[in-house]
């Protein structure tokens, strides 16, 4: 005799309930009652949850049907999703594989000077360039050069694609309040959803051997700040300057390219900096789904309790993070130079 029996009786739903499958899987209490031979008393006043209602009325779904429904739904949609997403995302696999191959094939005595040249070109700061050289040297000294380059190549590709996707979305959001209202919750979701959770559907959709699997995971996670800050940056452009642009008859393309984007550039660069940091954070977690790089060593440290391996890899990631942060921040402050009195 379950608690809610009388409720269904009073509502006149007895027949409807009887039509439901009484052969639904048993609850824990039923099992206990069966095995011990005596009826387990439920709570005095149980919450009308799906499982509790199901006890009184077989037509009510059980909670396990909800999770099962989601899974069935996803599996049903999978072929359609896969046939659309697979070709679209295929270039991502090529890019990632290509970058990994390039970074892995170029010998260190060419690669390190190239990286130093990039740092110098972006930051124009001797201190930052020397720091980059020292950090890479240190990683190479403990034979972490190859894994560090793998991580770096993944970050280059994913950050690049995040900017290519994020900036146009940010621009569109800044132009339309309605779009902004609808996109912001999605961005919030992407940022707060535990990173492991959106690995799950990706594993279902793509095979674990494909590099786009972790590529998509990293991009989904890292694209958020560049979208947000592009939107914010364009919205914060001085209204007086926009008015002047209008008063002199600029069309919307001239305004975007000549006024809004250049004035929003410091904010956009700050977004790119955040995107780099977030893809670095994600590349470690993505090692769970076969992303190569320093993350693999961290994972090995956890799995086999190899303390030293984990810590060296962890410090390697910190070094990469600091390098990327300093170079992108130095580039940002160089952009700001003409805006201030000096």
């Amino acid at each position: 005799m379950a608690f809610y029996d009388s409720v269904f009786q009073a509502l006149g739903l007895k027949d409807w309930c009887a039509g439901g499958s009484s052969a639904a899987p048993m609850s824990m209490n039923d099992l206990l009652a069966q095995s011990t031979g005596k009826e387990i008393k439920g709570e005095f006043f149980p919450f009308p949850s799906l499982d509790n209602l199901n006890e009184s009325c077989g037509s009510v779904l059980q909670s396990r049907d909800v999770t099962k429904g989601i899974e069935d739904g996803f599996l049903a949609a999978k072929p359609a999703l896969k046939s659309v997403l697979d070709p679209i995302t295929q270039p991502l696999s090529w890019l990632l594989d290509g970058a990994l191959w390039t970074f892995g094939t170029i010998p260190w005595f060419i690669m390190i000077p190239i990286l130093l040249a990039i740092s110098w070109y972006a930051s124009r700061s001797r201190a930052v360039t020397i720091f980059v050289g020292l950090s890479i040297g240190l990683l190479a000294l403990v034979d972490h050069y190859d894994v560090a380059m793998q991580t770096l190549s993944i970050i280059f590709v994913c950050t690049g694609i995040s900017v290519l996707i994020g900036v146009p979305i940010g621009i569109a959001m800044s132009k339309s309040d309605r779009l902004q209202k609808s996109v912001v919750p999605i961005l919030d979701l992407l940022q707060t959803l535990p990173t492991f959770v959106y690995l799950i559907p990706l594993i279902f959709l793509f095979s674990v051997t494909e590099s786009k699997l972790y590529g998509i995971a990293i991009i989904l996670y890292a694209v958020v700040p560049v979208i947000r800050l592009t939107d914010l940056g364009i919205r914060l452009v001085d209204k007086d300057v926009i008015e002047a642009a209008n008063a002199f008859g600029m069309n919307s393309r001239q305004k975007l390219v000549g006024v809004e984007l250049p004035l929003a550039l410091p904010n956009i660069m700050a977004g790119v900096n955040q995107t780099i940091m977030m893809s670095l954070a994600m590349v470690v977690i993505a090692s769970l789904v076969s992303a190569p790089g320093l993350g693999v060593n961290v994972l090995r440290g956890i799995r086999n309790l190899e303390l030293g391996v984990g810590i060296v890899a962890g410090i390697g990631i910190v070094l990469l993070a600091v390098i990327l942060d300093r170079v992108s921040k130095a580039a940002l402050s160089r952009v700001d130079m003409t805006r201030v009195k000096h």
Partner: protein
Amino acid sequence: MTKQPKVSLRGLYKIFGANHKEVLSYVKNGMSKDDLLVKHRHVLGLQDINVDMQAGEITVVMGLSGSGKSTLIRHLNRLIDPTAGEILVDGEDVMALSEAGLRELRQMRMSMVFQKFALLPHRSVVQNAAMSLAIRGADEATQKAEAMKWLQRVGLGGYENHYPAQLSGGMQQRVGIARALTANTDIMLMDEAFSALDPLIRTDMQNLLLELQEELHKTIVFITHDLDEALKLADHLVILKDGAVVQQGEPQGILLNPADPYIEDFVSDINRARVLRVKSVMEPLTGTKFAGDVDIRDNLESMIARSEGDTSLHYRVLDGKEPVGELHMRDLVKALVPRISSGKN
């Protein structure tokens, strides 16, 4: 004489709010700005503005903050759209223009100078000055040559490769003026162009503007809250209060014959001797004995200095070489005393 005004506003209304078209009829039936705000939550920006702006003149629109003067100037190039009324430029209705036509108007026929300069911070001074030409798609050489010419003219030669943030406020506004001049438009809109500058620089800039105007004869619409500035620059003065025109006309006429107590209060603090000119107080030529000849454009201050305060003197007034009237020092002194406002004293 059927001289067509360069710009004219006909029955212009502007109401800010979601249902501005609906509440227009209340305003037309005489509802006040305060009632409109309380009862319908709409802000009355402009009501029944009728102003003609003649080619080659400086029309100054003056009013205190909130009087709607900045709203008014933004209607001329439709940075703000009116609720009702007509805006005619060279007899053509600006409201009827397509988007492309409006851009053409803003590029080729009207340029604007802003209170906060509104220069592009990431472009150099010469690029800023050349902005209008760059928008039209002129080639680099033309852009640079034109921009340099006008930068020289406003006294900024040698600063062309600086960035706006490196210049003082006065110099930035010179760039703003050079930018408007480079556009080479007949009409120049100046929205409180000198209000953000300190007094000495402001006087410099006013003189620069008058000097340029002597040479270029543009149709200038100038917005200000400063009566001294208005009187100094205006060929035609429009005084706004609560979005309506209280009085408009020749500035000397307004000073001598204020239409209502509001304007009397306004003009009572002015140094009239410096603003008023002989032309405004002279009488038709009847006498024959004069203490000397004076020019019609001399201001009263210089006359007092010249007569050494003797009120019994009479002068003959010349316009160029031709005698056009006579000036009694007694009238001059009387004109210096403002008509006392009915609200005060």
